[in-house]
């Protein structure tokens, strides 16, 4: 059973996808569905072994290109619609015991090109209005398959958090004639205390308004709405800054640092988004080496985040761990 159900209280859709209850949950060693199939071994999702990166449709998708009709009847109060879209899995490497942070920069650079290709490809579907590239990393954020991978959801609408950002960016542009991300970046670079790393094309920072202790954003130094706008050289710079911040994350508490990575491109609905800029956000749940930040009453019930740390201090700590990268 899979459908979109309208939430009239929040004015947003919820995906109901009951088949996902059966998805693979911490498979035993040798049965990882994301590893390449070994000769004579358990048949995984990936039959070939000669590849750098592999992408396939999720076996347990929330959204499908040809979805079933909703199993429930909608109403004026509760509209329903088919859960149309695409859910892809992006396997970063054939290596099981690894992470994106542990990959050579050249492999991360390849991933940038694959992400760009997937963005372009999925944006061409007439039913897709937003392509969301993301990674859940670590058990602390609910990951059940440790093999290094990310996901892509191609939605049939612009999801609410993105729509809210688009609105903010549009209003800022109307008022000032300047893109909001450009304004934030100018302010952060002038202040400097929250900047973690930078190169010719990108800047990584913990923003003034961070909601998590180590919430890190990556902004393009020049206007760009989406991955599709970047040259290979710029994708290389994006790979470098990813490698730097991911390694700094791992060194913070000497653990494979958990996070949610959200890549925000402009919507793919064909409208003009010149006022919106590409950016990447990391939401790590760790606030100390032994404590996690949970989304509790204020965050989950009121949407009001309380950050009990100072972004300036956390940025300094991360910045001190950033090292030059080797290709």
């Amino acid at each position, binding site marked *: 059973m899979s459908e979109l159900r309208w939430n009239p209280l929040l004015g947003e859709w919820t995906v109901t996808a009951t088949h996902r209850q059966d998805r693979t949950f911490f498979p035993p060693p040798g049965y990882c569905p994301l590893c390449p199939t070994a000769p004579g071994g358990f048949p995984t*999702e990936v039959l070939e072994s000669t590849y750098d990166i592999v992408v*396939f*449709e999720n*076996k347990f998708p929330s959204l499908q290109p040809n979805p079933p009709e909703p199993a429930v009847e909608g109403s004026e109060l509760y509209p329903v619609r088919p859960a149309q879209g695409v859910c892809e899995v992006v396997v970063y490497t054939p290596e099981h015991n690894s992470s994106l942070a542990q990959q050579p*920069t*050249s492999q991360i*650079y*390849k991933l940038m090109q*694959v992400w760009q290709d997937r963005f372009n490809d999925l944006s061409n579907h007439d039913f897709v209005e937003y392509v969301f590239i993301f990674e859940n990393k670590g058990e602390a954020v609910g990951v059940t398959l440790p093999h290094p991978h990310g996901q892509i959801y191609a939605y049939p609408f612009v999801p609410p958090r993105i729509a809210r950002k688009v609105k903010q960016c549009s209003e800022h542009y109307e008022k000032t004639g300047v893109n909001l991300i450009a304004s934030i970046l100018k302010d952060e670079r002038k202040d400097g205390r929250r900047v973690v790393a930078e190169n010719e094309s990108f800047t990584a920072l913990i923003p003034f308004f961070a909601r998590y202790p180590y919430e890190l954003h990556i902004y393009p130094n020049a206007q760009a709405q989406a991955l599709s706008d970047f040259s*290979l050289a710029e994708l290389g710079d994006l790979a470098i800054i990813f490698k730097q911040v991911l390694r700094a994350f791992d060194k913070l508490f000497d653990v494979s640092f958990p996070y949610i990575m959200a890549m925000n491109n402009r919507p793919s609905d064909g409208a003009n988004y010149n006022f919106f800029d590409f950016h990447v956000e990391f939401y790590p749940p760790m606030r100390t080496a032994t404590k996690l930040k949970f989304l509790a009453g204020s965050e989950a019930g009121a949407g009001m985040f309380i950050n009990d740390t100072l972004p300036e201090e956390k940025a300094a700590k991360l910045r001190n761990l950033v090292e030059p990268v080797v290709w």
Partner: protein
Amino acid sequence: MENQEKPPEKAVGEMHKQRETMADGRRFIIYYTFGNEETELPKEVSENV
């Protein structure tokens, strides 16, 4: 940051992709490889990108 080199575009090479139908017959899978010469994979469809 200091000492950063530009990406080794030539070393990584061009991206190639090979799209196939998965074993369940309903989903697709895309194998991405990189190299300066097209990688030979034992399947029917290979698309240079």
